[in-house]
């Protein structure tokens, strides 16, 4: 019980400190102009220009051009939300914020440093992280890794730097789990990718503190196309965290990332992402993990904001006893479509997957769960459990579930559970009759709905999520 209390106190203290350090909200816009931009629109010369300015090896340039062809030939996906609003012509595909890539915050240009400071990044790095990368617009501007880990052979930096410094390592993994032929947005990323992180954890190395990348989009009508690769070599253990924010814009912007994770034999890899987009962002990343024998892959995602989000982190369970869990929280505010879910592909015997999706829809927000569970023939005694819970805040809030199962193995077992609840007048009135304002009452109910999964996410992010939910409920004003 005493432990319980001191944790409460700790949370309270942290919430207070976050209030001070981030009181300005994340939706501020920096007056910072890129030093180099490819301008609006996309064609072969834009792609060549990106490769040129990055002084890339030839194999990368050729890969980009191939990806561009595929992008141009692939149709838009029509099975999901309406993407006709994406304005390809008016998007800027590459913005270079600065020449330098620093390993010391003091060397980062003041305005960019201020932004990350407002977001509390350097402070978090000191307190909780083994290493961090900060990306501004299209490029990583800062990276650091504590010396103990560097000495053990851990590599952690933005992918561009890794292409230069560790080309062979990168080549082994680049676009293997997610080939750019996968879908139109993966192809786009292949053509214009810039930034993202490269993390390699050598055999048997256990990193006890998380490593984090923070992405910041600043200019409107800009695309962000980072490509992240996490490799947990045999028997290693690592927790990688991503945070993304963007200011409030009037014009739409596009975020289309690739995340590839390689959880090799006996490794334990956790990937957490907390995304907090402005209401004008199309968020279309492709995230996939290869999970080998006895390895464990955990996806934890919190997704707030954006106009349309489509994310379905996938785990390919390739070796016996590989396991994956996928925990996703999404908040669909007014005017937002959250089309999220998970895929688990069981390719080997005794593999297990567990998917928990929690969604909250506010006003006319629409939260969709779209999942794929596949049990290949031969995935003997594999198991899967899928649970989807939806909370609707207003009368016009919506939630839909599209689970899709392909079971080719008779010994495999799986279960689906789904629930839809509505925030009720009785619950609100009960809390309000105890002095809580309507906003406080509804955010308390929403956070209560998330309670069983909040434990699963790192405390700093639970607090951040907490703050964001409250903020979202505040903006809403009257509920019910």
């Amino acid at each position: 019980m005493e432990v319980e209390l001191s944790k409460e106190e700790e949370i309270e203290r942290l919430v207070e400190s976050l209030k001070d350090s981030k009181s300005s909200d994340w939706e501020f816009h920096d007056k910072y102009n890129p030093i180099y931009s490819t301008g609006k629109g996309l064609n072969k010369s834009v792609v060549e220009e990106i490769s040129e300015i990055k002084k890339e090896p030839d194999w990368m340039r050729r890969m980009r051009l191939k990806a561009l062809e595929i992008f141009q030939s692939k149709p838009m996906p029509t099975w999901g939300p309406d993407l006709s609003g994406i304005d390809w012509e008016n998007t800027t595909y590459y913005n270079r914020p600065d020449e330098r890539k620093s390993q010391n915050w003091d060397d980062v240009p003041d305005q960019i440093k201020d932004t990350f400071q407002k977001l509390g990044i350097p402070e978090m790095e000191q307190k909780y992280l083994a290493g961090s990368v900060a990306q501004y617009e299209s490029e990583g501007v800062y990276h650091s890794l504590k010396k103990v880990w560097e000495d053990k052979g851990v590599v952690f930096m933005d992918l561009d730097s890794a292409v230069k410094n560790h080309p062979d390592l990168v080549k082994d993994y680049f676009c293997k789990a997610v080939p750019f032929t996968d879908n139109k947005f993966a192809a786009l990323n292949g053509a214009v990718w810039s930034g993202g992180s490269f993390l390699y954890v050598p055999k048997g190395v256990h990193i006890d503190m998380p490593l984090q990348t923070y992405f910041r989009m600043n200019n409107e009508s800009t695309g962000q196309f980072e490509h992240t690769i996490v490799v947990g070599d045999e028997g290693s253990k690592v927790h990688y965290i991503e945070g993304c924010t963007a200011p409030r814009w009037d014009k739409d912007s596009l975020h289309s990332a690739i995340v590839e994770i390689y959880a090799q034999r006996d490794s334990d890899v956790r990937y957490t992402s907390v995304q907090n987009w402005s209401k004008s962002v199309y968020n279309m990343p492709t995230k996939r993990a290869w999970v080998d024998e006895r390895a464990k892959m955990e996806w934890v995602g919190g997704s707030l904001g954006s106009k349309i989000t489509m994310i379905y982190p996938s785990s390919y369970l390739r070796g016996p006893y590989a396991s994956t869990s996928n925990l996703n929280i999404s908040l669909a505010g007014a005017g937002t479509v959250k089309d999220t879910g998970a895929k688990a592909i069981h390719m080997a015997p005794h593999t297990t997957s567990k998917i928990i999706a929690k969604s909250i829809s506010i006003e006319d927000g629409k939260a969709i769960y779209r999942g794929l569970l596949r049990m290949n023939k031969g995935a003997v005694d594999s198991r899967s459990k899928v649970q989807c819970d939806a909370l609707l805040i207003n009368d016009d809030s919506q939630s839909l579930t599209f689970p899709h199962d392909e079971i080719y193995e008779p010994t495999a077992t799986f279960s689906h559970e789904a629930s839809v609840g509505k925030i009720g007048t009785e619950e609100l009135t009960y809390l309000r009759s105890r002095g809580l304002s309507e906003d406080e009452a509804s955010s308390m109910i929403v956070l209560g709905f998330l309670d069983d999964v909040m434990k699963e996410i790192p405390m700093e992010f639970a607090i951040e999520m907490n703050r964001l939910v409250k903020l979202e409920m505040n903006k809403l004003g009257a509920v019910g």
Partner: protein
Amino acid sequence: MVELKITNLRASVEGKEILKGVDFDVKGGEIHALMGPNGAGKSTLGNVLIGHPNYAIEGGSIMLDGNNLTEKTPEERARAGLFLAFQSPISIPGVKISSFLRTAYKQLHPEDKVTVTEFFNRVKEHLRFVGLDESFMSRSVNDGFSGGERKRFEILQMAILKPKIVVLDEIDSGLDVDALRLVAEEIIKYHNSEVGFLIITHYQRILRNIDPDFVHILMNGKIVRNGDKSLALKIEEEGYDWIKE
């Protein structure tokens, strides 16, 4: 001087008039009992007092210490000092009792700079008084509570949140003998000259432990009799039939 003044209060639910002109005053230090047959409108009165949005006030007024609460939101009324122990408290999954009470207390008593630890010690102490285990601190509000546990928790909230006017809607229903005694003790302990009570009940039992100064009978949306505790005794023996509206 604490004073709740209800004047000619009329209210409806879903277009149906339930309260048809209710008058009475509750002053600090006083204990009022409100009795009446099922469906008379007792719980409706409680809900109207706290500003439940499903109940529409059609006329009359609710004043607390000279402030007109008639048009106020539930939270404004709570902050003014009104508290209702619900007849059937609703469960709110995932909302931890500890953080719920802490948030509520901060709203109701912003002047009290009690630390988290002190505050939680207070809660633990009162959990003991009402016969609930300390582990309730980390449970969710009313979630999975038995009927009696819900009632005990309502009384705990009263003791912790320190309102000026306490409305208890059938706090005695569903309590075992020991729980009834604990709850009554907690009420008596909290009773002082700065707090007024309105105890809605069907039974004489609780009134044996807690001496009411006044007894009112509500029938068909109106107060039809006012008296002292002998009135409650008579109801227990003879029911409501003898009262002509």
